[in-house]
């Protein structure tokens, strides 16, 4: 079911109802794509059509408070990025002398604490649910990498606070970096490098990983329960 693109000006592909139609979505009756762009669009619409990206229903087994922690983590990350963005307006020394700066720094500090708190609860929940089942290994792996990237990003944050804590953390951590040769590339005592890593490169990298992680969740759906009965088999029995 696809509208003729020249008539409507849009390439609309309506997928009926929920994502519960098994197998591939075979609604593409238009010609096979001949362009890179077309191929990408087709692949995208096959993997992540709009109603998979923004669904209105979810499996009935998503009924536990443990499920809110993924969202809580993302929301905390938004606050981290937002408070961090305001801090960039004032620079790394702002919060020493400005009470507004100190407050924004506090927002950043506590949103980071909450971010890690929620992320670890989310991680623990996903482990005990064996959420990597059903070809969801990449979802787990991107999540684990996101956790580690967050630890690294937070570390660069501590090192640019231009106070005693930053001095001490830089002094101690340089030994770890140097011990394995990373100190040749990353100089924790180079404020310019650490600020750019913390504000630019690492959040960008982390952001990409998080986006991949979320898209994978949308793609595969929430993992079924470990001891769930086959709903098709159940329907067949009832019938």
């Amino acid at each position: 079911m696809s509208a003729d693109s020249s008539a409507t000006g849009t390439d609309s592909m309506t997928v009926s109802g929920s994502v519960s139609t098994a197998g591939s979505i075979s609604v593409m009756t238009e010609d096979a794509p001949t362009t890179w762009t077309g191929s990408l669009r087709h692949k995208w619409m096959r993997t992540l059509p709009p109603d998979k990206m923004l669904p209105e229903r979810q499996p009935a087994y998503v009924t536990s408070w443990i499920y809110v922690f993924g969202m809580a983590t993302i929301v905390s990350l938004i606050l981290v990025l937002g408070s961090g963005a305001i801090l960039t307006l004032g620079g790394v020394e702002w919060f020493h002398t400005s009470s507004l700066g100190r407050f924004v720094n506090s927002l950043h500090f506590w949103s980071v604490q909450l971010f890690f708190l929620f992320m670890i609860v989310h991680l623990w929940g996903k482990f005990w649910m064996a959420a990597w089942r059903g070809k969801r290994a990449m979802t787990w792996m991107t999540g684990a990498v996101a956790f580690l990237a967050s630890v690294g990003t937070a570390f660069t944050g501590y090192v640019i606070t231009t106070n005693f804590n930053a001095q001490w953390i830089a002094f101690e951590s340089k030994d770890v970096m140097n011990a394995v040769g990373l100190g040749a590339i990353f100089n924790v005592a180079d404020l310019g490098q650490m600020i750019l890593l913390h504000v630019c490169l690492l959040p960008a990298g982390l952001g990409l990983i998080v986006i991949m992680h979320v898209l994978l969740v949308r793609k595969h759906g929430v993992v079924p329960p470990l001891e769930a009965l086959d709903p098709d088999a159940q329907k067949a029995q009832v019938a």
Partner: protein
Amino acid sequence: MSTKHEAKADLDTRPWTGPTRHYDILKEGAIALVIVTVLTVGLAALFSSPDDAQLTFKGWAQSSPDTMYTAAVSELAGSSESAGYGPPYNNNSDGLSVGPIALQKWAGVTHPFDAAQDLVIAPLESQQQPADVAAALATWKAATADQQAAWAEAYDTALADAEGDAAKAAEGDYGPVPALATGLVAMGASGAYDGAILSRGSFFTTDYTKQLLFMGDGGYMEDKAVAANLGGDTWGMMNEAGSWPGQSWLAFASVWYQLPMFNTEGNVLTDNADAIIFFILVVLCLIMILVPFIPGLRSLPRWIPLHRLVWKQYYKENGRA
């Protein structure tokens, strides 16, 4: 794989065809955002955030001039920790290794650093000095490297024997070294050293390596850190100044630094602790990332069925295998 196993794997993989429930992702997100924002603002307003004042050389020179004096001498003598650090600063040591793997050495000297020159001589030279310090500088620069070493090492030893008290140091031929050290501490106390070591003659700089290295020599910074319980062997990695929470998520890294085997003087494990622990952590990280592929570990959720709490409601209404 048995058919039952295959059937289960298939159920996990294919799109869910069972019962569904209402879901509003944006509304959930919005509610979560409000709750977490209120939490964050509340915590920020109530508890603020840590900001212990930075240490300066002026502060060091004024509060503990003796330790700055002995540190300056140790830089000239090459006995300070940073003087003998090794790569990436210099080649005065091979650095840490794990067996034959010597990554620190292999990475090479990428941030060249000469303790005596960078921390003492150059800053002194960058300013107008009193006559005796200027004369001492001239004497030092005119001497051979061997002569410089002889003076500095002799005085370094004498100070160590006198437990850091210059007044009690034995008489000897120390050349210009005492005057240089005195000049340095005076420069520190006036605040001039902070400026000199920062700019090193340039306009822009973001590199604080030299300052950090000198600040760490001589115990001033370390004493303050240990007093604030930020020392590595007291879980310092996850602690924070004052009574704020620290980086609790670093517990799995910090724990290794508490083990006695990494805290015994002269033990090869302790000498190379940073390198060894780093490798341990890399292994742990890989294990964490690769959980789906590790037999046994990936079966833990089946053996310890916490999931029955997660899906309690669903199992009750729809049955359980």
